């Protein structure tokens, strides 16, 4: 009974988003590997694309366009990974080889600090928001978008509550030697 309780407890703990635990598990990891550094694991786009199926319907949805000009509209959106709770936008305004240009990039981010800074005659403004498709380019007509699965996020907390009640139940009758 106690063992079952412990199992449930660990299950419960593992459900918590604490990342610290992961690192400890990794401690005795693959020290035999030595060539991993050479491996080019930099395919951000693929990673991002892969993360969609697992997280769709639970998290945030953001526009994701890179270096868009004023006359262009952004047609790319993405379901962010669970850890990514921000839609970020960066507007750059300043002179380029092809004259004064305002460009706009948008993406899902796990952290976001709003900031405005001018460097080398280019003004950059980072803004952050946390609702579905909130990082729409300012010159683009806002379309009302369906946000699929805003309600589905509840399943996890239901599971946790279930585990909790099970656990307390076990402890209520468990520790009688």
């Amino acid at each position, binding site marked *: 009974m106690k063992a079952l309780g412990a199992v449930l407890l660990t299950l419960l703990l593992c459900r918590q988003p604490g990342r610290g635990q992961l690192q400890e598990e990794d401690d005795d990891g693959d020290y035999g590997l030595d060539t991993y550094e050479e491996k080019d694991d930099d395919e*951000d786009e693929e990673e991002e694309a892969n*993360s969609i199926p697992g997280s769709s319907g639970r998290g945030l949805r953001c526009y994701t366009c890179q270096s868009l000009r004023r006359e262009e509209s952004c047609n790319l959106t993405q379901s962010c990974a669970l850890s990514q709770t921000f839609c970020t936008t*960066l507007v750059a305004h300043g002179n380029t080889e092809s004259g004064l240009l305002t460009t706009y990039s948008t993406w899902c981010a796990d952290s976001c600090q709003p900031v405005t800074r001018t460097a080398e005659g280019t003004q950059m403004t980072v803004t952050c928001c946390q609702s579905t498709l909130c990082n729409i380019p300012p010159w683009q007509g806002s379309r009302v978008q369906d946000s699929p699965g805003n309600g589905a996020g509840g399943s996890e907390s239901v599971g946790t509550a279930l585990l909790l009640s099970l656990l307390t139940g076990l402890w209520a009758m468990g520790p009688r030697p």
Partner: protein
Amino acid sequence: MSKALFLVAVGVWLQSLTASRGGVAADDRRRDFIDIESKFALRTPEDTAEDTCHLIPGVAESVGNCHFNHSSKTFVVIHGWTVTGMYESWVPKLVAALYKREPDSNVVVVDWLSRAQHHYPVSAGYTKLVGKDVARFINWMEEEFNYPLDNVHLLGYSLGAHAAGIAGSLTNKKVNRITGLDPAGPNFEYAEAPSRLSPDDAHFVDVLHTFTRGSPGRSIGIQKPVGHVDIYPNGGTFQPGCNIGEAIRVIAQKGLGDVDQLVKCSHERSIHLFIDSLLNEENPSKAYRCSSKEAFEKGLCLSCRKNRCNNVGYEINKVRAKRSSKMYLKTRSQMPYKVFHYQVKIHFSGTESETHTDQAFEISLYGTVAESENIAFTLPEVSTNKTYSFLIYTEVDIGELLMLKLKWNSDSYFSWSNWWSSPGFAIEKIRVKAGETQKKVIFCSRQKVSHLQKGKAPAVFVKCHDKSLNKKSG
């Protein structure tokens, strides 16, 4: 006659019996340790430079007299070879830094100066005896006062690192930690583990290698990894600020008195890096595990996954790998030594196939709080439709990256080939991985594609995506 003799004998026996309850037993105890030549001075935060109070193995009162704090941790500092027969100037600095960081601790300085001033090979041989002395002192503290060895941290510099290793191998229980500060190379590079510092000597052994220039066995610092974590700042061979030009500047300023300091500049840097880690608690330098110095220079090793990065110095994470791991970092030339590491990846596109060798570039990084401009780097080769990765670093914390500027320098000499048309490449995106923040940033050309021409205007790229690496997505 015989009666008298008997009485005398009984008297002597009785006397010895009564005496043994007091002084003689202590004296015997003392005699057990009489062959310990090393001295153990408990320094104080008030007087970090003088050996005013000694802990004497076998003399329990000495520990009380020196106000040894039994409930705190103890640092045992072991110096290295000395030409002058005196403590070097770093000793009080390290003691002061240890007390600043751990005010309640005990900082014990081992004095083996008399054995440390012989010809190098003789002093190197004495590390066995010094290590044995230190081990007996520690064992006595444990036996006499139940002082837990898990509170003991040995710090040894140069030959002192190997003395610490030998001490650790001879204690009743393993000590908590040994920090080897550029352990000596000559006579130890090819030595077996028991006669030098090795990972078995403590629960955790960390090593800073700062002066390993030269062939193995001849370099002042040991080249091979000898701990659980072995850190090679600036590749471990030689340290910034330790070159001849710097030496001349220092001589001009301070006179010839500090010449021995200059000779050991890189060697001693290990200590100052550790002091830095004690004093600049909130900004530890990070070191990164890498298979080679060359791979690190390419920026390929800035990962922190699975303990691949660690803090340098006091706040190191005690990662015990099955085998030694070499870690690298760049540093500034003076305290604070911390720099910020970036891997830059550029794909050079073009319609015509071109290859150029040894090309000089400059990169400028603009962040949310500051910028670092005109960081020079050379690519051994640049070819069309190839991606190149390299490491750059900044001395200032520029915050989150926002913009990047890239310039391709013309050759310093007058070049006919560039006169008519300078070579150029098209660049769409530049990828940067920041080691300290563990973020991957993509910079995009603001005109979809930028043309970078040799000797012409720089190309500017603005952040168009970023991603944290320490948080797993999904």
